[in-house]
């Protein structure tokens, strides 16, 4: 009897163990199920590279190039800001900061990671947006630039904590060897630690960018939501994620618009899958 009970429990444990695989597959399948129908209306090429997104005009124009470029622009801006600052902060925490300050800084970073994105979006709306508007004398502060700054901020916790881990796991004798040869602390960091931790830092950057591409609420509240081909970083743009969040409420279940929004979901899923698999590869290469 006891044997039987344990048999059942162990099977249950196995099932839950593979549940993650099941859920990832389920998410992808249901996105495909609802999204692929859009390709009865437009070709995949037209969908990805079509220049106009007017989903409710008649006939609907379902080209997501403006949205892809919106996402890319905002992400590029966020990456330019967050990579140097994030990696710099990681080096400071891992190598330079005294032990006590280190703990405080790490808690601060954890705190930032915990703030809900809708709260950051709200704060961005009331502080950052007017600031950008006044500094650059723009008609509106809801621009790609504001979105980039806010998203850079949201990518930092990921970049800092993973890059710090990577630096921390560089074997101690590398460092000791460099010191013994007369290198200064900074020379050691720059010439020995950073190259040794490079694949982990690369993974940190990739996961940070993944976070930025997938971010929805803050970006929807701050970037102004204009689904047009962006001309500069000082104009409103709309990202892939914000389009889904903003428009799904009005789309009719089983309509063209609904299919198109799910197809955007497929694009996002594939992007995040590619980023995570590659980052995972770099993280394991290190060990």
């Amino acid at each position, binding site marked *: 009897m006891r044997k039987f009970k*344990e048999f059942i*429990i*162990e099977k249950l*444990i*196995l*099932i*839950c*163990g593979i*549940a*993650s*695989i099941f859920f*990832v597959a389920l*998410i992808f399948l*249901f*996105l495909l*199920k*609802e999204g692929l129908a859009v390709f009865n209306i437009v070709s995949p090429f037209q969908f990805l590279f079509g220049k106009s997104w007017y989903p409710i005009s008649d006939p609907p124009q379902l080209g997501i190039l403006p949205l892809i470029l919106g996402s890319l622009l905002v992400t590029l801006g966020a990456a330019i800001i967050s990579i140097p*600052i994030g990696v*710099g*902060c990681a*080096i*400071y925490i891992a190598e*330079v*900061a005294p032990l006590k300050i280190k703990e405080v*800084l790490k*808690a*601060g*970073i954890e*705190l*930032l990671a*915990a*703030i*809900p*994105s*809708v*709260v950051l979006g*709200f*704060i961005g*709306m009331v502080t950052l947006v007017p600031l950008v508007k006044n500094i650059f004398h723009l008609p509106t502060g809801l621009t790609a630039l504001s979105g980039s700054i806010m998203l850079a*901020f949201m990518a*930092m916790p990921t970049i800092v904590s993973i890059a710090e881990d990577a630096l921390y796991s560089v074997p101690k004798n590398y460092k000791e060897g460099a010191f013994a040869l007369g290198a*200064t*602390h*900074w*020379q050691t960091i*720059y010439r020995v630690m950073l190259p040794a931790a490079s694949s982990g830092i690369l993974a940190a950057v990739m996961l940070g960018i993944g976070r930025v591409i*997938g*971010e*929805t*609420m803050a970006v929807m509240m701050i970037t102004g939501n204009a689904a047009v081909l962006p001309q500069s970083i000082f104009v409103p743009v709309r990202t892939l994620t914000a389009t889904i969040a903003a428009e*799904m409420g009005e789309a009719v279940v089983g309509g063209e618009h609904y299919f198109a*929004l799910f197809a955007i*979901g497929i694009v996002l*899923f594939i992007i*995040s*899958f590619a*980023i*995570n*698999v590659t980052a*995972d590869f770099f993280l394991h290469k290190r060990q």
Partner: protein
Amino acid sequence: MKRNSHRTQKIAFFFLFLATLLIVVPVGLILVIIIQKGLPAINWQFLSDIPRQGMRSGGIFPAIIGTVYLVTGAIIFALPIGLLAAIYLSEYSKDNLLNRVIKLAIVNLAGVPSVVYGLFGLALFVVFFKFGASILSGSLTLGIMILPIVITTSREALESVPQSFREVSLSLGASKWQTIRHIVLPNAVPGILTGTILGLGRAAGETAPILFTVAAFYLPQLPNSIFDQAMALPYHLYAISTQIPNVGEKIRYGTAFVLLALVLFMNLVAIIIRYKFRKKKKW
């Protein structure tokens, strides 16, 4: 030459310090702004009243209750599955392809954009299972979203129980499951609790997954069953900041304050448990 390299080091460390300040100072500013402007809005009426006059006055009680329901539902779903999955990974799995694929799946599950979870919840729970936009659909969607957090932290907790504990138990004739149940699990409880609370905090703050699966724009009564729609704090904050013109500053900051306080409180509890556990640990 020597002096030169020391000056370089000073300049480099200054910039590293600057980078750190650029992250930490804004975090402090955000907290100060929300506390300073949000705290005065908090009173009993704000917390216990329904929204009135098109959400321009009154309180946020239904949104608080909705969030509590959603978070509870999410953890009821995610904790058992996540814990058993963690037990599998830490106690049963071997270093083989399956194990590798599971870990990759968890990483991917953690990386799926939150709005894609919303789409998934809409397609599977709302439309396919016909649960409609309801607390059930929203809870299940949030539950799958926080699964990776629960699995990862629980697994770390289980793996930090020393191998010798298991060996002693097995050598006394206990079966594998008895060892897990009576030796490994009790020693991992604080870590599992930490993961659970972090998952709760994450579920409480997310907006995109509940947009199409549960969130009601304005619903001045409390939900009666898990098949009802509900208001939720993060969506409420989104709605009064962007969808409705002329909402008083007090109400917006007050809502942001309550949501932030709720999420940070849970994170704080998790950090304290982890800290105490580390101090107490004898091995």
